[in-house]
């Protein structure tokens, strides 16, 4: 009985992580949908219904900001971030892993800076409103700390796995759009 309880408790972080990732995925799909529909509305509004929908491009831009920031964490998990691995491929594995330690610290520090800065911007955003929709600027600014935290989690998991040797240090260079 106790054993089963302990096991359930141990499985809790993994279940939470799965749930969180699922939530992020659904949000990202929703954001892409919002972007497509709002820009489409803008074109249709101008040419078919003959009036311009002022807020459409603002909605699309805010959705883009959320998508990019939140999606960066998802891209970390899916190993989509572009990296140049020419040099690290030439290193012995132990050295490549050892170098990852200071690298991980620097990267996580950077995300911490974004997190803290984001919290400050939310305070500033409380007294600002957006140009077209008069929305509180907190709406887009919240994406900064939320995403920095999620990105930090995925980055810590990815770097950690590489450092302890669970996964390879190289990621195949990421996905390219050029």
């Amino acid at each position: 009985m106790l054993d089963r309880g302990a096991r359930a408790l141990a499985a809790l972080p993994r279940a939470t992580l799965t749930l969180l990732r699922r939530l992020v995925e659904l949000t990202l799909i929703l954001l892409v949908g919002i972007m497509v529909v709002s820009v489409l509305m803008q074109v249709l509004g101008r040419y078919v219904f003959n009036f311009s929908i002022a807020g459409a491009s603002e909605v699309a831009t805010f959705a883009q900001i959320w998508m990019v920031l939140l999606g960066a964490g998802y891209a970390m998990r899916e190993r989509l971030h572009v990296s140049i691995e020419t040099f690290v491929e030439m290193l012995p594995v132990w050295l490549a892993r050892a170098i990852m330690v200071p690298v991980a610290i620097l990267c996580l520090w950077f995300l911490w800076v974004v997190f803290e800065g984001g919290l400050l911007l939310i305070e500033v955003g409380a007294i600002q409103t957006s140009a077209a929709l008069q929305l509180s600027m907190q709406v887009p600014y919240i994406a900064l700390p939320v995403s920095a935290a999620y990105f930090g989690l995925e980055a810590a998991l990815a770097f950690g796995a590489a450092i302890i040797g669970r996964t390879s240090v190289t990621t195949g260079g990421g996905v390219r759009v050029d």
Partner: protein
Amino acid sequence: MIFTFGSFLLLLAAGAPMVFVLGVAGALTLAVTGATPLVVVAQRLYNGIDSFPLLAIPFFVLAGLIMEQGGIARAMVGLATALVGWIRGSMYMVATVTATGLSAISGSGSADTAAISSILLPEMKKRGYDLDYAAATVASAGSLGPIIPPSIIMVVLAMISDLSVGAMFLGGIVPGLIAAAGLMAGHWLYTRREPERYADAQPFELKRLATALREALPALSMPVIVVVGIIGGIVTPTEAAVLAVVAGLFIGLFVYREMTWRDLPKMMLRTAGISSAVMIIIGTASIFSWLVAIQDVPSMLAAWFAANVGSAWVFLIVVNVLLLIVGMFMESISALLILMPVLMPIAIHLGIDPLHFGVVVAINLSIGLITPPYGICLFIACTVSGRSVMQVSRVIWIPLIPLILMLLLSTYVPQVVLWLPRALM
């Protein structure tokens, strides 16, 4: 400064994602100098991605995915076969023409290469074509992707250098078409050596062309919407991209029926992942470029150049060579974000038209997509064909010749680039 440069090199060497290489270097510089509060990091990151024109990136990525999975690429191959399949070395011609058509949909050289590789390379193998040259052909055809509009490289370039995306797109059309013609001429000359190997060309038939055209008509609506929308100035490039997505979805779901509604969420998630990975670099690079700008690096370099070199011609040669080398080792979006804030002010200082310079840089980086050892289009074509980069590199110089000639033409005869945007805008 040493600290910043050191961390930049350490992260670069350790193979850390570019988003961190640029972000950490920027943030560390601020932290070490201590003159500016660190909140600037979050602020610049936000400003870097708070841009309506950048929305074109996710939309063109999505259009590219639909093009690949919705049967559009396949229909284009059919049309290209009826159009140029009668010329000697027919499949090389078909690959080049198909890629030219797909270039007008996706905006990414690697997406175009992936789409035509998977369809055409197995067919070329079956017909006994020289597989190394086939891979070189497909890669070089794919490298037209970011030259012919739409182009993600151009969207980013326009944003960094305050240019019109539409004007840049128009500037790429003439050089792109010259390059396509040059590539085909190169293939024709190459196949002259072994005419018996390339005897598979079918004589031209008007009836076959009519049938292929009818079948490809729905697919053609995608590039037509993008190109006409942008040339006509009816819609912005971002809006054209959304219209292409909607048209592509309709075609994939209801006309060719190679896609189902169930594929859609997966494609949207992939779009979000791919676009975020690129666009977050634009965000962190804007910290970096802001630092470069406030320390007045570009005007110092521009003054040095004006005093010591002085000639726009020499500068352009230096840039041509520099970008070809950078393109061999670095992904072009990161290269743009690091180099353009420095190069563009020098170009303007030397009296070079910014639009002309921007398009030349885009062409330059596109050629970098097929130069060994790390050109991405070359890499994709090699993976699909099962040949090694070394093997294909032995023949890649053949299609490189027309591409480099086109680069030189566009660089030193500015009208090649500027004529169309000036005539239409």
